[in-house]
């Protein structure tokens, strides 16, 4: 199928409650990079309470505060569309609070909350919040360059046997459970603590998510992003 005939559907879940740190940019970057390759692309924004379509290509979940996290978990569970879409081969990028709600349990508003159980991780609470630039080597997705972004979270995430590490921390905190890992990969789920938003600063990760659905993609030239990455990586190593 030529790109022109294939329409790419990005589903941005609950941006008004999970979208605190500019994570909506991830949906914009996915659509932008698909379009630059000649695909038709649309970003479908789904608000809490609306029906989640199951025919999306890449789903995007962002970060947010405790109360929002609990509301999002309830909404995603009662709708069920995200789990069905993943069962049908969709890809999912989950950031920060989004990572936590996918897991088995997480901690919010002072209690342990049952997550969606779509990702084999559990998240407890950190004593000191992790805030700052984060650089990590994406060992979980071979061929990707270093990941760069900004973390701002109070979670300690431990991976279970079904999840693999997304990346090894070069500088910053990441999952923060003492293993030196950052994020998780399980099937077509990519989960990370990186804001920035992560796909704007790491377009190779955006292309990886698109390729999971579209097959191999032609490379794009990104001189501005290359300069931004060089600047941020240099700043983090100072």
């Amino acid at each position, binding site marked *: 199928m030529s790109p022109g005939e294939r329409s790419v559907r990005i589903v941005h879940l609950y941006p008004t409650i999970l979208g605190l740190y*500019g994570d909506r*940019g991830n949906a914009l970057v996915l659509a932008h990079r698909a379009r630059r390759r000649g695909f038709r692309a649309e970003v479908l924004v789904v608000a809490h309470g609306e029906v989640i379509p199951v025919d999306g290509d890449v789903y995007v979940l962002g970060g947010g505060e405790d109360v929002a996290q609990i509301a999002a978990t309830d909404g995603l569970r009662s709708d069920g569309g995200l789990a069905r879409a993943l069962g049908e081969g969709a890809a999912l990028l989950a950031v920060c609070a989004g990572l936590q709600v996918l897991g088995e349990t997480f901690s919010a508003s002072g209690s342990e909350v049952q997550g969606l159980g779509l990702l084999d991780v559990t998240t407890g609470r950190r004593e000191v919040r992790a805030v700052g630039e984060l650089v990590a080597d994406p060992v979980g997705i071979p061929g990707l360059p270093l990941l760069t972004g900004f973390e701002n979270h109070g979670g300690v995430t431990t991976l279970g046997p079904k999840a693999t590490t997304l990346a090894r921390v070069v500088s910053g905190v990441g999952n923060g459970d003492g293993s030196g890992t950052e994020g998780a990969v399980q099937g077509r789920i990519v989960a990370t603590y990186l804001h920035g938003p992560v796909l704007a600063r790491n377009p190779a990760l955006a292309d990886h998510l698109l390729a999971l659905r579209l097959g191999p993609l032609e490379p794009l030239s990104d001189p501005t992003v290359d*300069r931004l990455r060089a600047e941020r990586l240099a700043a983090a190593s100072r």
Partner: protein
Amino acid sequence: MSSSGRPWRTKVAVAVGQGAGTASRWLGRGHGSVIGGRIAMLIDPAVIEHLTAGRPVTIVSGTNGKTTTTRLVAEALRTERVVASTRGANMPQGMVGALAAEADELVLEVDEIYLPGVAAATKPTVLLLLNLTRDQLDRITEIRRVAELWRTLMTDITWPLTVVANADDPLVAWSVATLPGVVWVSAGGRWSEDAALCPSCGRVRSIEPGRPWHCACGFNRPDVAWWLDDHVLHGPDGFVRRLQPRLPGSFNLGNAAMAVAAAAVRGVDPHGAAAGVEAVHDVAGRYATVNVAGHATRLLLAKNPAGWSETLELLLESRGSLVVCINARSADGTDPSWLWDVPFERLAGRTVIAGGDRRLDLAVRLEVAGVAHIVVDDVVAAIAALPAGPVEVAATYTAFHDLLEALHVAW
């Protein structure tokens, strides 16, 4: 208390602090108010308490519009009284200079997080609360936490205090909901992305533009004493007056309404207060129009998505060239991810000059938004090189002050 009645330690603290502030200004390091205040607080840790004792204090806090509204309140009160106020410094170290002035009344801008401490030290008569939205999340971390801090403060109030609050902001309303006698103002606000959840019960609320917010749990927008009907301000006792601030934008109309309400609480005639508020045309360099190599250049401060939702309207109304400067130093917040919460797509068809420390983050954002842009190292030189015509500059906090310095604008 007159200055002669202050404890000797306070007098020494102020004198030494002012000396350091003068030296700092002389060295070209800005107002000098922060360094001066820091030294004064080292000499007399209770300097703020001592300087405010016996004088009515109005405190202005919130995420956006603090500096502007502080100035508007000060001008409203000045129509009848001698008033001293802060000029942009909003943490305790920066306030000492303003507090040391001879004045009947004081108006202080206070950072959201520092509010409980400063309120306890200064025992304000009026507390003006504007809005709570995402800003400097590396420092503030969660907006809910600020609302909780404020809510705790309200239970700790032991002195006579009137809160004047923006009823249109659910988080502000929740933070003072336990306090009786709040003077509610409908000051509006375009940005609603941080109010999608009911602060009281955690339910997801439906947001209907133009309608007062409400929730199934019964936590609804309070009935207001002051409201705007387009440009007409309505207040208690049948007060009605057209309000035409010289400051641009609907946001400043709301700020002006809040200022008039606060001045009325202080016993100032609201008609006179409104006239005082209307006359303000720039605030600490913000909204000022300066000449840059022949270009009439308007300076706008925009530091977070809520502020930008107002600033974008001003840029869209303008036919001028557009310059945006983004820094991410500690006073700006060190994470500029929020650039992706700003609908820059609306500037499609215009060309933006991108400057500031984080111009590359901005450039990537504009690229995805489909907005033509030019990345420049030197913004002033770039403005000078533009074809004839007006220029609009929007900058984050430290980028704005860098620019004032580069343009030799006094503030």
